[in-house]
């Protein structure tokens, strides 16, 4: 039987939805137990949140100094130590999970299963390679722990319950001092979170400038949507990096994705292929985005987008 340890992700106040998605992936193993480990300088309320995720037995709430919980090298040894009593150790396939989980795998002497998109059985998983152009089925060695990151767009978040798992408080000891957190600069957060929003409006190179992106924001506000961007728009300096959608940005699965002035490079498409409905607005009828779009509209985005915002 499987005993799963899940690494929780949070921003200091709230658990990230990736944690509830990792719980869903863990449930697909029909495990005997699911435990959660979380690291924070003030873990109390986060631990309470984690304890109400379904089927969780124990939450290990590990108190750290200040920002140590953000540093992979600081927390990986404690995860690996707890992990020794588990058959599976899952983390989210977010920048946080991608940073720390391979360290856990190395400490346990295994290769990691990156970006799990489907659980077939306790040791068999599907994952994407070549930017999602190929899906492989991988089998992990029978007698070793499975360390994996869960591709968040592939799993629905587990619903929080009224039940409460037991919480075990610990303190992080002997963390290395060779790494130090300095700052985190985030874009404005007035709009819904890009990774969890049900509607996302994204702009690409075709939007033309940072000023023109106002058009994207206006449409997003009308739809109550999060805003995203292609790599080209980020590289051009129109918008900050945290808006990037795609292979090296965020992999998302909103119900509605509106791609404006985005040609649709394969690296971008891999970030949206789990979206419910994709709408593409582009002046080039040959743009690859139309190959994946459910609804396409060819034309001048500078006319179409204001009209759409007006009429919605």
């Amino acid at each position, binding site marked *: 039987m499987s005993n799963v340890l899940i690494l929780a992700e949070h*921003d200091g106040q709230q658990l990230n939805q990736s944690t509830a998605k990792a719980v869903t992936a863990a449930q697909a193993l029909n495990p005997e137990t699911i435990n959660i480990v979380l690291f924070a300088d003030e873990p109390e309320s986060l631990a309470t949140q984690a304890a109400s995720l379904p089927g969780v037995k124990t939450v290990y709430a590990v108190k750290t100094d200040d920002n140590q919980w953000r540093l*992979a*090298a600081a927390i990986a040894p404690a995860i690996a130590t707890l992990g020794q009593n588990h058959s599976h150790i899952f983390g989210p396939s977010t*920048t946080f999970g*991608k*940073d720390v989980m*391979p*360290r856990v795998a*190395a400490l346990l002497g*295994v*290769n*990691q299963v*990156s970006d799990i998109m489907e659980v077939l059985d306790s040791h*068999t998983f599907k994952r*994407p*390679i*070549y*930017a999602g*152009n*190929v*899906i*492989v*089925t*991988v089998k*992990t*060695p029978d007698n*070793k722990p499975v360390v994996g990151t869960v591709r968040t767009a592939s799993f629905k978040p587990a619903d929080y319950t009224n039940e409460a798992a037991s919480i075990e408080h610990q303190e992080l000891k002997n963390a290395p001092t*060779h*790494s*130090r*957190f*300095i*700052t*985190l*600069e*985030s874009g404005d957060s007035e709009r819904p979170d890009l990774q969890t929003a049900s*509607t996302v409006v994204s702009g690409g190179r075709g939007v033309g400038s940072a000023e023109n992106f106002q058009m994207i924001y206006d449409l997003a506000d009308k739809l109550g949507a999060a805003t995203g961007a292609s*790599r080209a728009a*980020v*590289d051009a300096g129109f918008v*900050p*990096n*945290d808006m990037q959608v795609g*292979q*090296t940005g*965020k992999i998302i699965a909103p119900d509605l994705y509106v791609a404006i002035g985005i040609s649709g490079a394969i690296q971008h498409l891999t970030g949206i*292929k789990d979206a419910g*409905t*994709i*709408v593409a607005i582009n002046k080039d009828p040959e743009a690859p985005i*139309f190959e*994946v779009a*459910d*609804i*396409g*509209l060819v034309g001048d985005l500078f006319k*179409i987008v204001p009209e*759409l915002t007006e*009429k*919605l």
Partner: protein
Amino acid sequence: MKILVPIKRVVDYNVRVQVKPDGSGVATDGVKMSINPFDEIAIEEALRLKEQGKADEVVVVSIGPDEAQQQLRTALAMGADRAILLQSGEAVQPLQAANALLKIVQEEQPELVIMGKQAIDDDNNQTPQMLATLWDRPQATFVSKLSLENNKATATREVDAGLETIEVELPAVISTDLRLNEPRFVKLPDIMKAKRKPLETRPLSDVTGDFSEQELTITQYEAPQPRQKGVMVESVDELITLLKEKGLVA
């Protein structure tokens, strides 16, 4: 100070790979091969540090078939000083790669290892973090800005929440993200010069043991499920009507 840059030979990022009809693998015969783009950024960053006088030697290392010498020669033409190829006819998984690189790190004693955050073939995103762990040194992953001062690296990392800046003591492992720099183009005279630069080859088995018990086995390759063909609309009104029918807008 010495910088070690591990690089990987991969299918060029412009090639759209196809699964073999029998699902046994990916068709790579005759396709263009290149340096993994993230690794090319790593080479460029190391060269810039050398040009700023912050490093005095850039060593590139690869694990792969004999043909990976081409990618090492390209790195030498970009400006790296010497190259090491650990020959392996078979694909190497991250844990073994990290163990092999650790051996090279122990031999070469670099103060900085800069490498791509992931290879664009298997998209694992593991080897830099594993190398840092086995080496018992800090890491800064997904880096878009890097500066060195007083035996420390200050690195800005591209994270989901924005840009995170951390400071790590050297030696350390840095993994590169796309916006760290734009790699230089190689000029013809540099290609000629690179032919005279040292390139050492040795079997991978010289530096690592057997990792077959740790390997993940790929049992099937398949193409992703294609999305259903969509419809084209002619006007904003038509678009809004369709979105309303699907219940996606009020």
